[in-house]
């Protein structure tokens, strides 16, 4: 041994506890990465508990609750929201095959939905005078949309994810353009110009689905039909995902090159995923069309695509339960934000207002730590409001001349607190731009300033909401959706319910 032995550093007290056999473990040259992996990862207890519930149990619980929904809720509007939600859930799990399993960014997904709906309309209406039975229509749509998916996938087969995104996005746009414009088309093989799709007026008076002798003539029946289909699709997709095919999809999502070197025909698998997604979307389109009893091009524009992606992303791509949950959350949110007519019975407030203030509160609760600051911020905001009101009453009469545009308990509360200018549209617009800028700046500020600036920003948000956004609910909900999507990606890219994946570039 040398005179001065190298210093050996013993782990310090403050570090993790050692293993009981620490003394016997060799200290140099042994990689303990795996052995300690479990304890190196930080994960909440709630999530670990949730992961332990088996998938079939979750599905069963969901079905049990959902099946009684149309009976328990005797309100046709709510039942209708329920069917819509199921349609979205179906669309989301279908999209999940493409995006979540195979990792392909398919932005033309809505076109398949529309294609299924239009196909249903064509074979079940007076337009072409076909009235096929649903037992034939639904398998037919399944096959043709899958075939269309394959066709669209073909040119993209050699392409990276990004290129696929643009081809499919373009395709989605094209679908709307073509359905919108094919009112007076003379193609080379036709003898005269014809109206193919009804243009913006769409195809109307579709037959209701009449499946195996049961005519779907009421909203609850559609609900159960969609629920049954959802369960079928989820179980089928789950089985495929657990098989060699699903494994290969996941492998090609992880590393297409390695997958190909390991005997997986990558292009064929991509096309298959594509066709799967398309088929699910097509069948869902058929239900949608017959529920609506009409199809219009506008129903299949890019907004729907964004909504669907929001659902899939929010839920966490790759997990069936996650995306279904995402679909529920997003659809209920969007419905709630537009429903300005009803006043909720117990709280005495319209849903949009409740949702807005609720979202702000939840958002803050997620971001602000420790929570006592939340109380401080709330108090500061309230104080700031009264101060602003006081100042305005002195110096700016026009600023307090207006009234909340919607009644409700919260409306009454904010009346004496917020400024309500006489002519809110212009001021509201400027305030909206100012609000965006100030929220962005807020994220850049450092600790003390961030808290100080929070109260005025919250007040500004309430001001913009009450004076401007609340008046245009259909635009507002999309603005909020876009903002939530961006915010969610920045803070939790794996989605609310998803697990983070390790990706090495």
């Amino acid at each position, binding site marked *: 041994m040398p005179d001065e032995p190298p210093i050996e550093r013993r782990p310090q007290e403050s570090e993790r506890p050692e293993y009981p056999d620490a003394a016997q473990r060799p200290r140099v*040259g042994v*990689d303990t*990465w*795996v052995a300690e*992996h479990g304890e190196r990862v930080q994960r909440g207890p709630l999530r670990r508990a949730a992961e332990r519930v088996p998938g079939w149990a979750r599905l069963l619980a969901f079905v049990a609750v959902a099946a009684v929904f149309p009976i328990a809720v005797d309100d046709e509007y709510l039942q209708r929201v329920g069917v819509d939600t199921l349609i979205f859930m179906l669309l989301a799990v279908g999209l999940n095959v493409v995006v979540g399993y195979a990792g392909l960014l398919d932005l033309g997904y809505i076109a398949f939905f529309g294609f299924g709906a239009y196909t249903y309309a064509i074979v079940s209406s007076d337009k072409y005078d076909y009235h096929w039975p649903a037992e034939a229509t639904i398998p037919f749509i399944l096959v043709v949309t899958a075939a269309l998916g394959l066709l669209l996938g073909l040119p993209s087969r050699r392409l990276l994810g990004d290129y696929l995104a643009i081809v499919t996005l373009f395709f989605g746009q094209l679908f709307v353009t073509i359905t919108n414009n094919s009112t007076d088309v003379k193609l080379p093989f036709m003898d005269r110009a014809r109206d193919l799709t009804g243009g913006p007026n769409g195809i109307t008076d579709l037959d209701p689905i009449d499946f195996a002798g049961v005519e779907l003539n009421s909203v609850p029946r559609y609900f159960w039909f969609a629920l049954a289909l959802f369960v079928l699709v989820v179980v*089928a997709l789950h*089985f*495929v995902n*657990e*098989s*060699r*095919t*699903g*494994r*290969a999809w*996941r*492998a090609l999502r*992880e*590393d297409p*090159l*390695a*997958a*190909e*070197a*390991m*005997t*997986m*025909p*990558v292009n064929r698998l991509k096309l*298959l995923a594509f066709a799967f997604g398309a088929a699910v979307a097509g069948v869902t389109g058929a239900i949608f069309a017959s529920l609506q009893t009409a199809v219009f091009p506008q129903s299949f524009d890019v907004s729907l695509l964004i909504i669907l992606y929001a659902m899939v992303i929010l839920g966490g791509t790759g997990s069936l339960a996650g995306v279904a949950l995402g679909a529920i959350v997003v659809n209920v949110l969007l419905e709630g934000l537009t429903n300005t007519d009803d006043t909720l019975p117990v709280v005495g407030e319209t849903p949009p207002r409740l949702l807005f203030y609720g979202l702000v509160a939840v958002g803050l609760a997620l971001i602000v730590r420790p929570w006592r600051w939340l109380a401080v911020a709330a108090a500061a905001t309230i104080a700031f409001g009264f101060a602003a009101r006081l100042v305005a009453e002195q110096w700016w009469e026009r600023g307090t001349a207006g009234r909340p545009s919607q009644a409700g308990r919260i409306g009454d509360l904010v009346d004496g607190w917020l400024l309500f200018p006489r002519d809110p549209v212009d001021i509201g617009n400027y305030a909206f731009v100012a609000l965006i800028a100030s929220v962005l700046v807020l994220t850049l500020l450092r600790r003390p300033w961030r808290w100080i600036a929070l109260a005025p920003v919250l007040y500004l948000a309430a001001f913009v909401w009450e004076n401007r956004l609340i008046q245009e609910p259909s635009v507002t909900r999309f603005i909020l959706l876009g903002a939530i999507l961006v915010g969610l990606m920045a803070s939790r890219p794996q989605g609310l319910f998803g697990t983070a*994946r*390790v*990706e*090495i570039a």
Partner: protein
Amino acid sequence: MSEPERQNEQEGQVERERERVLELRAVSKSFGGLRVLSQLDLVVHDGEIVSVIGPNGAGKTTLFNLITGLYRPDAGDILLEGRSVVGLPPWKITQRGIARTFQTLRLFLNMTVRENVMAAAYGHTKATWLESMLRLPRARREEREIRRLAEEKLGFFGERLVGYRWDQPAYSLSYANRRRLEIARATATRPRVLLLDEPAAGMNPNETLEIAELIGKLRDDGGYTILVIEHDMHVVEGISDRVVALDHGVKIAEGSFDEVATSPRVVEAYLGVRGAKEEAA
């Protein structure tokens, strides 16, 4: 020292009788005017371990990419068991019997250890998605089989990759275990020929020793024919039946380890004076 020599002597007599499993005939490849491989001939016989050495940029990995179909040769032919594989897609070539590992490790990181190996059995399972969807007997039987296959392949590495590690995600593995998992995954494709791209890179001497032994075991017990790229001359010396040295896409030496290691061209282009001295010592 006489062992490789003797073997080499025998080689001359036996060569004609032993099956040529993999054969490259005058293969050339350029990228944008830069010639990476030119007129390369290479033969690998049944049950042989052949090492490819050469300085960086000599075209070693390109050689692997050509054999596995990631690139298409500009000229020449590549034969597996006498049949040309040029122009086939990579997955088909692997199905025919050439599997590889990657120098930069390309595991399916977010899949479990077992799934990584099971995924590689795709090529020799037949259940269609419809059978899987309906859980028909064949799908269930195959699933059981490849599960067993995966566990068997992982068991090849002793205790390293068994038990609780089966269900861990691949990203949680240590570097050395990732290399082992890549080999296990490659063998799950049921190959005839294994191409190992720097299997000992980034391993410490103990692990290197172990991997060298393992490569021998793969040949002896697994029956694979092995072509390996390696920088560690101890490994090359320990495992190779034959060594091929490349420089600038040209074969500069071929023969037993000793012949190649003492070839002046190899010393000049690859080993360097000190490296050659070390080998001599």
